[in-house]
């Protein structure tokens, strides 16, 4: 295929990706704000952040590869434990990031 045609395709893909990514970000904000939501929905939405963060985090800690497989002996999981304790004690986001990175680097250098 011609280089120009390939890059025309890339531009269309980027535009398409942009649209389908923006709509789910935009739609609930304009639909749900300025509106009195039912109490159960507010309660449900309140639980969503804890759910999403845990759902994003845990598979990263205990699985690896593509397709994913269980991998409990990886530094991601073991570094998470002291990082978790540090975060729990200090409640400092910046501090936790720095400590987590330092421990991960240390473990990777040793191993």
């Amino acid at each position, binding site marked *: 295929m011609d280089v120009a045609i390939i890059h025309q395709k890339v531009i269309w893909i980027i535009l398409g990706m942009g649209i389908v990514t923006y709509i789910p970000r935009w739609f609930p904000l304009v639909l749900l704000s300025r509106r009195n939501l039912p109490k159960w929905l507010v309660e449900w939405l309140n639980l969503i952040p804890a759910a999403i963060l*845990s759902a994003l985090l845990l598979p990263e800690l205990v699985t690896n590869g593509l397709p994913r497989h269980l991998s409990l002996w990886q530094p991601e999981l073991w570094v998470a434990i002291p990082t978790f304790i540090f975060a729990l004690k200090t409640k400092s986001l910046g501090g936790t990031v720095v400590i987590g990175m330092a421990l*991960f680097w240390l473990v990777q250098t040793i191993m």
Partner: protein
Amino acid sequence: MQNSGIKTSILQGLTAAWPICLGYIPIGIAFGVLAQKAGLYPIEIMLMSILVYAGSSQFIAVSMLSTGAGAVSIVITTFAVNLRHLLMSSSLAVFMGNTTRKKLSLFAYGVTDESFAVNHTRFSQKIWSLDKALVVNHTANITWVVSSIIGGYGGRFIHAGTFGIDYALTAMFICLLIFQLKGRYYVITAVIAGGAAVILSLIIPGSSYIILASIFAATTVLGIKKWMLR
């Protein structure tokens, strides 16, 4: 707004944003490198980072491009991967109050896993405003775009794994999760969501496990709560 108010918003926004930026730099560079290897021009890398602005889907799109996937399947995959933002924006909508649609549309652009978590935490502590949240979103956005361009030009010279920077976002999620554990029901939600996500991520390919596990956990816990209070 007064001048000092704007200054405070910018300052507090930047303070909240820096851990996100620290995480975006290596990932943005890595994305730029991969995109360049897949044959994208720097201008295209920049366009994708500006118009899409969603890390994991950008990685997936680039790897699909290099295997010769069709445009439609790449766009559909992107939609599926980024559908989780629907939940995040819904969750943030609660705090928006009376805001113009224009400002909401601008804010919507910057909703990512990380900006969502940082902003939601502060909104629910009642120490946050939309202006500060916009500073967070756009600081993170600029960092992402610039990092990916740097990667596209010559990131292959930067050694991966330096200073454990690969772990920045994981460590950030750990702390943000702790901020969200505001009571018994939140802890139960996190445990169910995490467990379900691990199991689902092993069974189904792709990243739909995030949205499925989150909906399942929140719905289950709300059900338990209603049943207990009956």
